[in-house]
């Protein structure tokens, strides 16, 4: 019995700054969730994750997160990823002010 695969993005934290980054289709690490590559195929998602994990000099803690298509690009599904894409709720710190990310 096969379940429908939830699309994924590859995400990690930047080695130097520690902030959240997303793997783009053209193999850059973007600060913006909407620029991430939305991967619809499970096997490809695994390959992309494994490739990204080898970039140990650039990023830390690579993993796949659920995402869905949105008007500007992929949007986070789980609330943890919403917070990661935005920043903490108690101060205007992190992505919400540093990268002009839209409010979720």
């Amino acid at each position, binding site marked *: 019995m096969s379940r429908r695969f939830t699309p994924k993005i590859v995400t990690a934290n930047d080695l130097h700054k520690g902030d959240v980054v997303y793997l783009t289709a053209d193999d850059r690490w973007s600060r913006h969730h909407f620029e991430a590559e939305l991967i619809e195929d499970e096997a490809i998602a695994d390959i992309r994750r494994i490739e990204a994990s080898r970039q140990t000099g650039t990023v830390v803690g690579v993993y796949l997160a659920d995402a869905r298509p949105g008007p500007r690009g992929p949007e986070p599904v789980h609330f943890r990823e919403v917070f*990661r894409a935005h920043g903490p709720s108690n*101060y205007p*710190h992190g992505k919400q002010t540093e990268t002009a990310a839209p409010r979720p």
Partner: protein
Amino acid sequence: MYTYTEFDDAFVRNRVAQFRAQVERRLDGSLTEDEFKPLRLMNGLYLQLHAYMLRVAIPYGTLNSRQMRQLALIADRWDKGYGHFTTRQNIQFNWPVLADVPDMLDALADVGMHAIQTSGNTIRNVTADHFAGAAADEIADPRPVAELIRQWSTDHPEFQFLPRKFKIAVTGSPNDRAVTRAHDIGLRMVRDASGAPGFEVIVGGGLGRTPMIGKVIRDFLPRADLLPYLEAIVATYNLLGRRDNKYKARIKITVHENGLDAFRDAVEARFAELRPAFSGIDQEVLAGIEAQFAPPAFRQADTAIFDARYATDPVFRSWADTNLTAHRDAGHAIVTISLKTPGQTPGDATSDQMRVMADLAERFGHDELRISHEQNVILPYVHRADLPAVFDALRAAGLAAANMGLVSDIIACPGMDYCALATARSIPVAQAIATRFEELKLEHEIGPLKIKISGCINACGHHHVGHIGILGLDRAGVENYQITLGGDGTEDAALGDRTGPGFAYDEIVPAIERIVGAYLDHRDSPAETFLMAYRRLGLGPFKAALYGSGEGARDRAA
């Protein structure tokens, strides 16, 4: 207070130099993350949700004005101008950049501070009663013993790779403000029949996934036997503790699975072997440390200026009634500076606020500050005549909330706003509850009430021992908050009872309001505190207030 010896200083500097080289090798690619991670954790550096986080130890919660100013400087220069004080008497900086961390550690070393053993499966920062040395109810200042334990445990060759992390707390007072029964080892100073001071030794307490109240392994341990006995406990745990399953690796499980009696027998046998090796040097060291913790010379002065302000200024009076604690010297008071102004992040202080507190400690407080596990700052030695000036300065800095021990004095862990392990947010829940009760103007009428919030089952926010405990969970991709009632972190330690199904993020504040409403409706008199009322009434009226009449059905669905 304790000042570093040359040995301490050289040790810490050496560790910073080592770590600087490790960071360089990580950044130039010679170390992988797998190799680097244990090294950074040994130096208190975590990777959290949005950034790295540096956790700095404040041993037994004591620091001086110079150290506090240095924390402010670090916050300004390498972070975002604030720091977060934690339930383990540490401070966390939430935004450091990896390459800056060695400089931050050097700046800490300049004032005799470090981030060693704030992580990893070692003996962590030893915590103590935040009123130590000042409290009226104290047998003796517990900090010399805490410092002795710090020296013994720091870099202890046998205990760098324990089955799991290990936390020790000490109190010198019968009124336990150090939550000793929720630690791997808790030490409570007691006297034996002849009046000689010693310790009641408690083992196997802890919160987290499997919360347990510690058990007394020794009713009375003579002071001179402390280190060999601690060594025997930790060595026994090192041998018997499980390494196959990290959820069963804490000493509380070791004690539980082996039984207290069998564990005690093993400890006593080991103690008998170890005791002769302790020739008394530890006691000489302790005597030296004790000299450094000698109480300040308490000045005798007229308190008329305090009395006059108290009689005429209701705002000052409210603060004095709420945030002062009885001092061993009648002319002095212990001041609790609230880092819980309603709406604020519990435990956060800006660099400016840190400098204000440092100045006050220097001018009025014998240069001492304490960090409490309840995430407030203490000035332990303020003469009553100086209290009006201290209050005015605090008020100007936004630090004069009169809420110690009240509903808005909430412990909250960082939760999902920062912590990578979190399953839900805790900070905004604390902010919303505090703001709501501020609006209701009911706080002082409600009286003593400790709310404690954790953002996951690890329980850094001590929710199990909160009179009202809140645990944030992820239920099918939605934040959900479970409530426990009747927990207690004092000498009468108790774990809270779960009320039933949890509440969604936007339901949790009204739920807490209903609990408090039920308490106000059911209490005998204002003298019956929330905890007393709960102990008398049990869950019943609170469940009814929370869930209404459909409670049975919802309960089964929990």
